């Protein structure tokens, strides 16, 4: 019998020799401290808003951006007094018409505002918003809809991923890190781009990054196949990588398990995966997660609608507005958090410009 790797915390020792692969100096440490903490508005009255939520595939409980959006609404209900309207998730292979029908249905039932989660809703939101000019719409991850009553909620994934890259560089001792993407879409490519730049910023040419995807655009099975992600991550690890960042949805679990089995580290995505119930047995390898705060954006959006104008919402939720971030819940990240915060500040200050397109 093989000794079970699951009981021992495999991750811990990787972090000891922090920065052995790092060649570049971190930017000057931030002085201002965390000013972003208390930006949330709580003094707005949203009691005449009935918030509708149209989820992407997965819906509430997906431990990813759907869940985050739901959390944002829940917060708004609790703190701003908004009324919870209808909620419904998209089905696996549903047609464009189903999405339209869902939004239409919500609008007819008096939901206002309606938040659509995922860029797959772009067409449908555009159409339904035109038919219901008095209803406010928001769409997560898309800014291609041009309508007065549609607010895009998009994020600077590449900036958050940049920090993940820096963290990976600092945590790596073999000077080789990896990125596993679920499906090779432009959105996921932003994660890849940011991550690669982050690694390079910290490690220069000293650290090698291998970035791979499970499936090409359109084949969403890549977000749903932990088995294959596991194989991919294992092969990266066996070829020398010791920190792996994933942007692969539910497949990410396979990456974590590979890291746990092979004494490597992993970085989560979207929400703080260290805290996720379904990952409790591999949490130790998740040094940090790149956070994409859909909840914050949704909350802010609802507050803005309650106040009467969405014009003040940021065009993109980036590091400067805490739209993206990295998580600190695993204490293993503490020893490099100063450097990470320094990079963060540099990006906020515009000293580092992160591109959203992969180099190669």
């Amino acid at each position, binding site marked *: 019998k093989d000794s079970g790797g699951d009981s021992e915390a495999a991750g811990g020792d990787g972090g000891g020799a922090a920065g052995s692969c790092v060649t570049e100096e971190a930017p000057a440490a931030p002085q201002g401290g965390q000013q972003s903490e208390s930006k949330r508005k709580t003094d707005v009255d949203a009691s005449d808003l009935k918030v509708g939520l149209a989820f992407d595939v997965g819906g509430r409980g997906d431990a990813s951006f759907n869940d985050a959006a739901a959390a944002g609404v829940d917060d708004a209900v609790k703190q701003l007094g908004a009324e919870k309207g209808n909620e419904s998730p998209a089905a696996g292979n549903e047609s464009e018409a189903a999405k339209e029908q869902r939004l239409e249905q919500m609008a007819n039932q008096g939901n206002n505002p309606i938040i659509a989660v995922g860029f797959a809703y772009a067409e449908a939101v555009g159409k339904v918003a035109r038919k219901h000019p008095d209803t406010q719409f928001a769409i997560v991850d898309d800014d291609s809809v041009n309508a007065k009553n549609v607010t895009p909620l998009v994020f600077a994934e590449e900036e958050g991923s940049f920090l993940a890259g820096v963290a990976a560089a600092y945590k790596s001792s073999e000077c080789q890190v990896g990125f596993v993407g679920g499906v090779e879409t432009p959105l996921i490519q932003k994660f890849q781009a940011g991550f690669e730049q982050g690694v390079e910023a910290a490690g220069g040419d000293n650290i090698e990054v291998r970035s791979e995807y499970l499936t090409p655009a359109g084949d969403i099975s890549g977000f749903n*196949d932990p088995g294959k992600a596991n194989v991919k991550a294992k092969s990266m690890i066996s070829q020398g990588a010791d920190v792996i960042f994933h942007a692969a949805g539910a497949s990410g679990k396979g990456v974590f398990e590979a890291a746990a089995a092979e004494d490597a580290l992993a970085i989560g995505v979207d929400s703080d995966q260290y805290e996720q119930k379904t990952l409790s047995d591999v949490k130790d390898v998740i040094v940090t997660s790149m956070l994409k705060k859909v909840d914050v954006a949704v909350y802010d959006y609802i507050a803005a609608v309650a106040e009467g104008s969405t014009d003040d919402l940021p065009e993109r939720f980036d590091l400067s507005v805490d739209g993206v971030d990295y998580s600190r819940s695993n204490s293993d990240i503490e020893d490099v958090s100063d450097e990470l915060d320094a990079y963060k500040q540099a990006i906020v200050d515009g000293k580092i410009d992160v591109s959203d397109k992969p180099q190669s």
Partner: protein
Amino acid sequence: MTSVMETPAPASGQRSSRRIPGWARGVLWAVVAIGVLSTTSYLTDMPLLTSSDTSQTALRLALPILLAALGGLWAERAGVMNIGLEGMMILGTWGSAWGAYYGGVWVGLAAGILFGLLGGLLHAVAVVTFNVNHIVSGVAINLLGLGVAQYLATLVFEPLSGNPRESPPVAKFDTYSATFLSDWLGALENEQRVVLSDVAGLLRGLVTQVSPLAMLALLLVPVSYLVLWRTRFGLRLRSCGESPVAAESLGVNVYLHKYIAVAVSGGFAGMGGASLVLLEGGADYLENQVNGRGYIGLAAMIFGNYRPSGLLGGAALFGYSDGLQLSGGGTAVLALCYGAVLLLAVIVVVQLIKRKWFAAAGAAVGAGILYWIYWTNDELPSDLIPYTPHFVTIIVLAVAAQRLRVPKAIGKQYRRGEDS
């Protein structure tokens, strides 16, 4: 009186290929495959092709497909088409996660098998008792499997995991290694000796970190063979797939045997589903995780010409090329291309010896094209690489040209007492 007449065999008679027994041909193929792979890995400097990691991954990826294919074998040998393998696998994933959560891996495995079996029974009721078109029933079971699993997951798993699409983490099978053998093979593998190291590498992957489930599944291949071809039950079962009327006329209970066969088929498919859930690095229950593996299993079974050894080959081929593609990416696939060129070269020679000019020319053209691909590309379009196993399957079939021995009465509706 001339009672003894040696009538010449009819035109469709004796096939020349019958001279070599099936197992010998299997061994021969395996030898050729390993030879080609080790030559390729040597010439293209791609140790990955024959590394123990690769064979280990291949085994793992092949497992669900192998089990689904075995399920297909049992049903189709009894004359029942089983497009519903996919749905039965889905039921198996749910069942095994549920069982494993409450009772550990073995209970999980049993529950997975049970759920698949229930799917199989439903198929049997529809197809055997109600004479429903086999494809219709299969399609319906795929829908039902999906719907029921989702429904149950919402009902049972959501309160536990907070997620209607996923179960909470469940127990996984431990893995075992034949340590001594594995180390010895590992040493051999590292010696970098041509062929020997390659064989050692491939073998080592099969004895290192193997789960009981994998062993069980592999064991089920010869067991299926023995049961189906060496026992009276198996004979009766197969006769239902060849000529149910004849079987019935000899007192075989066709309905019963079909029921058993389809139930076993469902059980195997459920086990295949369980293998997605209960293996280290797998997914617990996760919606849509089966993702067409049932269909692939069916394809592997047809690929293997409705025989256990053949479907093992089909599943292995699929698992191997999938694993290679995942861990080696485009360069490994290119190396595989090169391997295919070598294989085709062998085939050209064989066909030339057999004086089959047309086949030889075809193989030569294929080899030329593949070599051209290999030579002109440093990297293949990354969008296509994940589908390497699918390409490989088609290419192998196109080259090997099947002489399918389909069970004669497959898919036919059979009603007791009504012949024609």
